[in-house]
Structures are given as structure tokens and as C-alpha cells.
């Protein structure tokens, strides 16, 4: 058995082991469903209530992806602007940190005030949650591009745009993808916060209603769905990352064109 496969098996065993331990402890100690439902019960709830949960799942996924897409667009644009020159970097960075440290939960009521409850504030919250890691990483990647690499291009009389396209952006890709993996999970957080506060659709809304009626297994079913969605998007971006930035980790698969 190769070490790679062994590590994957160990990882899977840890996850399954955790759930088995959870199940056993709940049964042995006779924990009430209202406090902490058993994993088996969560699965049963998931399957039984799926027709009810499914539209909300789609809503949450849709809101997150749209918000995340806007976050990427705005984040890359802002990051390129800030990272393109030393001056812009020094001037804009304090402001950026200031905005980034505002708790996003506090902004949701403002969005609701402006746009009304529903999908729009959720998309906006997902967007601003995912925006900052992308901006900071893209800007840092561009600002730390080795001057020698730019000199190669400048000696060839390349213009600013060509340097950005051929050196700046490829060199920034590892930073960009690292930020995407953080940002995609944050986008889910943003959507769910907004759905909890002001929406009548989405997993966040389902969970809030379920918890107010002490339907704890349904709350946990909602959590499970969110975790599954988060992991799925993370895996997708990791896969693309490996394809695009394999050079940065010096992967043999990348060099072989796989």
C-alpha cells in the first residue's frame, strides 16, 4: 500500500470513527434528541425530509455561488488595482484592513434596509465575506512579483499590460487559489447569516425555524447539508488549483501534463 493511499484511508477512518464515537456516546449516556441527536437519526431526518430541504439547498447554493462569483470579480479587480503599484498598495491597504475587520453580521441589517429581505442581501453578504481574502492575496501576489522577472519583460519592451498578463497574473495564481479555498467557505457563512436574519428561504432560514420549534435533528440535518456543500466547492477549487498552479508545488503530475 502506498503512503498516499494510506494517508487517505487514515483520514477517512478518523471521520467515520468520530461519528461512531458520537453515536456510541449518545446511546450509552442516553442523551436527549433535543440536546444532541445521534448521527443515525440525522441521516434518517435528512432522507425523510429531503423533499422539504431540497429547494432550500438549491437556494443556498445558488445564492452562495452568485455572491462568490461577484466576490471573485470584484476581488480580482481590486487586488490588481492595489497590487499594481507600490503607491496604491501603501495608500489603500489601511483602508482595506479597516473594512475587512468590520464584522459582516453587522452589515446584514443595512443591506436589508437598502434592498429588502430575501436573496439580494444574502448574495451581497456572501460577496463581501469572500471579497477580502481574495483582494489581499491577489494584491500581495502582484506586489511581491520578483523585479528580475519583470526586467526580463521590460528588456523585451513589453508594455504594462503584457507584463501583467505574462508575469504578474500567472505568478499570483497560487495566492489567488489559496484565497479562493478560504473565500468559498466564507461565502457560505455569509449566505447563511443573511438567510438567518432576513429571508424566508434557504438552509439558514430552515435551521432558524427548526431551532425555534426545537426540531434539533432538522437543525443538524441543515448543518450536514452546509458542510457537504462547502466540502464539494472546496474540492472543486482544489482540483482546479492543482491543474493551474502545480508548478508552484513542483508536482510531477503537473510537469507530465496530467
Amino acid at each position, binding site marked *: 500500500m502506498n503512503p498516499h493511499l494510506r494517508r487517505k484511508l487514515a483520514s477517512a477512518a478518523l471521520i467515520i470513527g468520530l461519528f461512531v464515537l458520537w453515536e456510541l456516546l449518545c446511546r450509552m449516556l442516553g442523551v436527549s434528541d433535543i440536546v444532541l441527536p445521534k448521527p443515525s437519526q440525522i441521516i434518517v431526518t435528512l432522507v425523510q425530509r429531503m423533499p422539504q430541504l431540497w429547494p432550500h439547498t438549491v437556494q443556498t447554493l445558488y445564492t452562495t455561488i452568485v455572491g462568490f462569483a461577484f466576490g471573485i470579480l470584484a476581488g480580482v479587480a481590486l487586488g490588481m488595482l492595489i497590487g499594481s503599484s507600490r503607491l496604491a498598495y501603501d495608500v489603500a491597504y489601511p483602508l482595506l484592513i479597516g473594512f475587512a475587520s468590520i464584522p459582516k453580521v453587522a452589515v446584514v441589517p443595512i443591506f436589508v434596509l437598502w434592498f429588502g429581505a430575501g436573496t439580494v442581501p444574502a448574495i451581497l453578504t456572501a460577496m463581501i465575506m469572500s471579497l477580502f481574502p481574495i483582494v489581499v492575496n491577489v494584491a500581495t501576489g502582484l506586489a511581491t512579483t*520578483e523585479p*528580475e*522577472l519583470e*526586467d*526580463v*519583460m*521590460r*528588456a*523585451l*519592451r*513589453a508594455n504594462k499590460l*503584457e507584463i501583467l498578463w*505574462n*508575469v504578474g497574473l*500567472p*505568478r499570483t*495564481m497560487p495566492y489567488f487559489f489559496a484565497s479562493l479555498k478560504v473565500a468559498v467557505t466564507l461565502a457560505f457563512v455569509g449566505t447563511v447569516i443573511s438567510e438567518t436574519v432576513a429571508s424566508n428561504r434557504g438552509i439558514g432560514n430552515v435551521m432558524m425555524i427548526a431551532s425555534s420549534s426545537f426540531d434539533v435533528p432538522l437543525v443538524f440535518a441543515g448543518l450536514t447539508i452546509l458542510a457537504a456543500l462547502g466540502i464539494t466547492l472546496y474540492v472543486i477549487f482544489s482540483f482546479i488549483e492543482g491543474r493551474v*498552479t502545480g*508548478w*508552484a508545488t*513542483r508536482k510531477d503530475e*503537473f*510537469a507530465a*501534463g496530467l
Partner: protein
Amino acid sequence: MTSPGAAETRPAIDPFVQLQQVTLTYGREGKQVHALAETNLKVGQGDFVALVGPSGCGKSTILKLVTGLIKATSGYVFVAGREVGAEPMRVGMAFQNPTLLPWLSIRDNVMLPLKIVPPFRFEYRSKRKTEFRDRVEALLAQVGLAGFGDKFPWQLSGGMMQRASLCRSLIHDPQLLMLDEPFGALDQFTREELWAIMQDLWLSRKPTVLLVTHDLKEAGYLANRICVMRARPGRIIDDTTVPFARPRTIEVTYTPDFVTMTQRLRELIVSARPVKEAA
């Protein structure tokens, strides 16, 4: 925009590269560093000139001035009879570090100038997989890198990366080739092998070359002329013509005439060092 043919049919402009009363000062007022005092230099078309001298004497500065990467504080830099930057000029540059782009294969790295520099850039899309690819393969083979086109920079040794870097500086048939200590970080044997390759490339293509080096043997082996510089402020204090016939071999560097020449240059450089470092 000039077509490449026009540059070749144009009567040879002598000198091809000219520095006229050029000075360069870094830093703000009060803390100024005079990198280059009034410097004059003429290089004929197809000539091979080496710049040697103590570190910090402004050797690399001259290359950057001629390439147009930095601007002179005063004075004029002419290339092909025009002020530098006034006219598109095919310039190749190789540095002490290979500076290959790690996300591109060796082939794509070498092909980079063809993507940027006119007139090649206009045909890049159509010829990328045919004519240009063959051109890259031929040049790679010439420096002993045949079959390495698909590799990535990190899969190659330092010497091989430096060969690829030389290929990149030559692929677009530059009229002007700037070499900034390209062999400095290599071991003795790789270096001597690359000298021979460099000499062959120069003899077959005849670009105008400016070579910055610390190695007098290298300067004597490769160059037609050796300019010795002194530091703080940098200026050219000696200009020696190298008399040995081409193609030169490593054996030439052990002949008494060659040794006498390098010894004289060595003494010039030692005496040109700033006093506090001379001890």
C-alpha cells in the same frame, strides 16, 4: 515600426551603441549616490565588448541604460543612431539568475520573446506550434538541451537553466545582446563549455554584445574589447583590444600572452578599488 529587413539593409551605423557624457545618480538630494560619472563608450555593430571592474562600479548600470530599463541623469545613450527607446529594437538580455518563468515549460520560456517582440508577435498565434517551435528546438539543440523543451525549469540543473536563459535571450535574433554575468553562478567546467557555445552563437549570428563579468579569463576568451571600470563614481578607465584569433579555445587562455593581458587588467582593477576596500 521598422521591419527587421530594414535594419539589415541600412548602412552600418558606426558606432551602434554610444554613451555620450552619461551620468547616473541614485537617491534623493543629500543622500545621492553617483553610480556613474561622465561616461563615454562606443561599440561598433557586431562587436563583443566586456565590461570588468570591482563590484559596485556601475557595470550593470551601463547595461540597463543601453537596454532602456533605467534613464540617464544626464547625457545621451544612442542605439543604432537614435536615442534609446525612440525606436523598437530587438534586445536580448540574460542575467546571473536564469530568471525563467516557473509556470512555463522550457520551450514556452524560450519562446517568450517571440510572443512579445515585433515582428514575431504578429505571427505568434499562427506559427507557435510550427515554425517557432522548430526554431526553439533548433536553438535548444545547439546549446545541448535537445529534448528538454517539455521540462519545467525546476526539473533542470542550474547550468541547464542558464543555457535555456541564453536561448531565450537569442531566440528573437536580437541586434543587441546584454549579458549580465550569465555564467557567474556556474561551476568551472560548465562555464567553460558555455563560453564555447556563446562564442559559436556570436560567430554565427553576430549580434552586438555587451558582457558584464568578474572573470577576466571569461572576458579575454569571449570579447573583442575589454573595458575596465572603477568604482564610486563609476567610470571607464581602460579600453583594451583582445588580439587573439577566433575561434578561441580554452588552451589560448593558458598562453603567456593571454596571462600577461589578464594580469595587467587584474592590476588595473585592484588599483581601481576604493581605498577602504583595498586592504
